[in-house]
């Protein structure tokens, strides 16, 4: 019998529900397509969605069941602490290399304690959040707001490209640069990049899985609901009409592609520079 931590069990259950819902809705869409047969592209999209949903379900279970690296030597009570630390580090200004280094050190500390038969709370105090904060500060002060804005910009560029690519595939347009989408997509993409994704990342880092689902469903419903209200009661207002009817192309040429790549690289460089500066500016604690 595979022994999972309580947190892993919760993640498996809720992710399975989400993937299940995705598959069910895809099947409903497929049945709808069978009745209407309105183009082959929809069928292919459905097949791709179901394929990726199944692959992600399998990968998710493998990732949770198969503990990676040295943490696999840890007993459940030690692994639970390791898992909490790993999740909390995900939502930080630390780079992937810094996080990997910390987790390697933590697994060594925990294994040593396990070997000496010391209880886990004698190694890491009960206040894990405070421990994480002190680890973050050991890399110097980093302005979280600026990091979040830079990450938001990166998210936005990523979302923009994915959405345009998806519409290109669905509509089967001649050229990627001719793809148009509703102006109303723009606030949605901003909301997703600067609010929803960081919020979800924060909730995952705090292992608040139920709140994660509530926030996801709540924010999407709020956005769709407010749009629907606007459409119903504000259709006479000029800007509301423009908001719903105007079609625009975001990535319209190679020039824009180059600009987007430049922005992406610059935001990465800014993060790298800020990390370097925070370490350089550290002073003695006495």
């Amino acid at each position, binding site marked *: 019998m595979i022994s999972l931590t309580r947190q892993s069990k919760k993640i498996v259950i809720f992710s399975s529900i989400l993937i299940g819902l995705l598959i069910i809705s895809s099947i409903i869409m497929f049945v709808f397509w069978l009745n209407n047969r309105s183009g082959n592209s929809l069928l292919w999209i459905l097949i791709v969605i179901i394929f990726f949903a199944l692959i992600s379900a399998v990968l998710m279970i493998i990732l949770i069941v198969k503990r990676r*690296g*040295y943490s696999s*030597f840890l007993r459940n009570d030690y692994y639970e602490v390791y898992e909490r630390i790993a999740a909390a580090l995900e939502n930080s200004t630390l780079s992937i290399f810094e996080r990997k280094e*910390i987790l*390697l*050190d*933590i*697994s*060594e*500390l925990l*294994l*040593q*304690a396990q*070997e000496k038969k010391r209880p886990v709370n*004698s*190694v*890491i*105090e009960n206040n894990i959040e*405070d*421990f994480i904060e*002190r*680890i973050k*500060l*050991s*890399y*110097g002060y980093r302005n979280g707001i600026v990091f979040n804005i830079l990450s938001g910009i990166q998210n936005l560029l990523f979302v923009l490209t994915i959405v345009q690519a998806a519409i290109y595939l669905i509509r089967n347009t001649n050229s990627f640069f001719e793809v148009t989408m509703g102006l109303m997509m723009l606030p949605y993409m901003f909301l997703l990049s600067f609010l929803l994704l960081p919020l979800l990342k924060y909730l995952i880092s705090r292992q608040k899985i139920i709140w994660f689902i509530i926030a996801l469903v709540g924010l999407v419903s709020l956005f769709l609901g407010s749009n629907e209200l606007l459409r119903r009661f504000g259709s006479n207002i000029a800007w509301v009409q423009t908001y719903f009817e105007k079609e625009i192309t975001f990535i319209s040429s190679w020039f824009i592609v180059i600009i987007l790549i430049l922005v992406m690289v610059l935001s990465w460089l800014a993060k790298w520079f800020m990390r370097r500066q925070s*370490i350089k500016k*550290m002073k*003695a*604690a*006495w």
Partner: protein
Amino acid sequence: MTENTQLIRGILEGCILALVRKRESYGYWIVEKLRESGFSDIHESTVYPILNRLEKRGLFMSKRKPSKLGPPRKYYSISNKGLVELERFAKIWKIIRNNVDIILREELN
């Protein structure tokens, strides 16, 4: 003793620099040494961020060596910058200790 106060952490930084001065050391050994020296309620979770900070500030150098437990163990050794900082700490500590002693002697006797 509240081990996480800024004062204690500052003092611990100096003590850890002193412990690592003579020999290459690893986290667990440093925690044990601190406990033996009277910091009996010290946790690894207090010492680890300090070690990390000292390393990032360039006061320690680190090297990973294989360990039978699994993950390669990180060994710390003091750098020249660390030696200068240790000397500075020792001087400041002497002044603080003398000042506190004078006040306590005058006020408590």
